């Protein structure tokens, strides 16, 4: 009887290991990872705990995963967001009950958790469970932990390391053009050739003009006709025809 009671007690205070791994939300979301936030899928249809249990999200640096102590409660300095990651290698946030993760998930709805969205409490020591923006690009590992009072009752597996985006300096963008396009080269060369031909034509014209002015023959002069009229005063009725 007594060993059976002990066994029952041990089962009641045991930690249920759920084989669910927290994952990032779908990549169709433009803000899946930014420089200081990331978006997780909600753990729907994962936990089978009482409605009174509180499900927390644990965010940790990968080094703290190996010997993570589930019994250290949220709100303590060891788990305060404001001390992360220097004095607190992990923090707990986004506490909620199972009522907010109803099962089954309605199709077509986006059920996500945005980690890092609360900016107004990130420096407020009175809010150690703040869901503040992450201080660096990571990587980070997360898991969900269900607490009944202060007793851990269920936990998921740790996620894969999540690395956030690192922004580059705009000075690294090469701003110089890629060179000249074919159209521009064609345009420039054709116009230059045409202009050169016109200038040559102008020079030829001026040379032609100056040689013309100095007495060269003009091309279109009508030949002067020389008419000779012979006047024969004595033989009036025998006049030779005038030539034009």
């Amino acid at each position: 009887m007594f060993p059976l009671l002990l066994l029952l007690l041990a089962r009641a205070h045991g930690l249920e290991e759920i084989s669910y791994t927290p994952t990032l939300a779908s990549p169709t979301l433009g803000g899946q990872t930014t420089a200081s936030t990331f978006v997780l899928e909600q753990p729907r249809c994962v936990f089978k705990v009482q409605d009174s249990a509180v499900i927390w999200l644990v965010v940790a640096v990968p080094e703290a995963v190996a010997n993570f102590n589930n019994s250290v409660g949220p709100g303590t300095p060891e788990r305060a967001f404001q001390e992360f990651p220097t004095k607190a290698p992990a923090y707990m946030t986004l506490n909620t009950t199972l009522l907010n993760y109803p099962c089954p998930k309605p199709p077509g709805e986006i059920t996500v958790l945005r980690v890092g969205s609360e900016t107004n409490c990130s420096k407020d020591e009175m809010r150690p469970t703040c869901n503040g923006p992450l201080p660096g690009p990571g990587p980070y590992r997360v898991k969900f932990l269900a607490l009944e009072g202060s007793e851990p009752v269920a936990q998921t597996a740790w996620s894969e390391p999540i690395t956030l985006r690192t922004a580059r300096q705009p000075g690294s963008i090469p701003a110089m053009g890629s060179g000249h396009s074919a159209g521009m080269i064609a345009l420039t060369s054709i116009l230059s050739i045409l202009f050169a031909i016109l200038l040559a034509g102008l020079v030829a014209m001026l040379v032609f003009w100056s040689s013309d002015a100095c007495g060269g023959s003009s091309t279109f002069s009508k030949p002067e006709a020389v008419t000779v009229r012979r006047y024969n005063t004595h033989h009036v009725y025998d006049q030779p025809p005038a030539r034009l």
Partner: protein
Amino acid sequence: MAKSDDGIRILQGLLVFGNVVIGMCGIALTAECIFFVSDPHGLYPLLEATENDDIYAAAWIGIFVGFALFALSILGIVGVIKSNRTLLLVYIILMLITYAFEMASCITAATHRDFLTPNLFLKQMLERYQKSEPDNNNDKWMTEGVTKTWDKLMLQNQCCGVRGPSDWQEYTSAFRITNNDADFPWPHNCCVMDARGSPVNLDGCKLGVPGYYNSNGCYDAISGPMNTHAWGVAWFGFAILCWTFCVLLGTMFYWSRTEY
């Protein structure tokens, strides 16, 4: 003799026709360049901030060249009809000067269009959009121009960034200095707005849910009008110059065939 007379008459007719076409094209060029200079898409502040607004200089030259072509074509028609050598010589020389200016305008427009790449606008947007500490008055003027232009662009064209909202995430920017990443992964103008000008769903916009934020880039909205501007000035000017080349050669030939 009658045959060369006919030939001269035909040449005269062709030259008058050529000059009429030049006159009309000159007016069209002036009108087109006035349209471009008036900047109907409001993109001039972006060019001004690159300090490389020579396609506008090309359009300004185009206005004056177009008007000069119109005036000179009238001179040319009078000179051809009167067969006056002096008038035709003046016409040819002035036309060559106008030709040179128009050539400069075409080449400038074509060359400087090649400088306007997506990276240029990206760098300018990241360095100037909502920059809070301008260095001097000139910088302040350019910064305000860039900021207003981008805000208008993003609202009117439903776009974000040069290539997309990820531009704001991939690079640090002047915007990022005054707006933290968690509240503003990208400017709020990238969000889909309702009729009153506020985001339909700000959380959806910050998450990047398709439908609540603009996921396409603004580069098409910028390069479209600029390409039209630059190619309009460059290639229309090129066409006019080719036609003018033929008319000028014909006029030179006609000049050599007339007499004082």
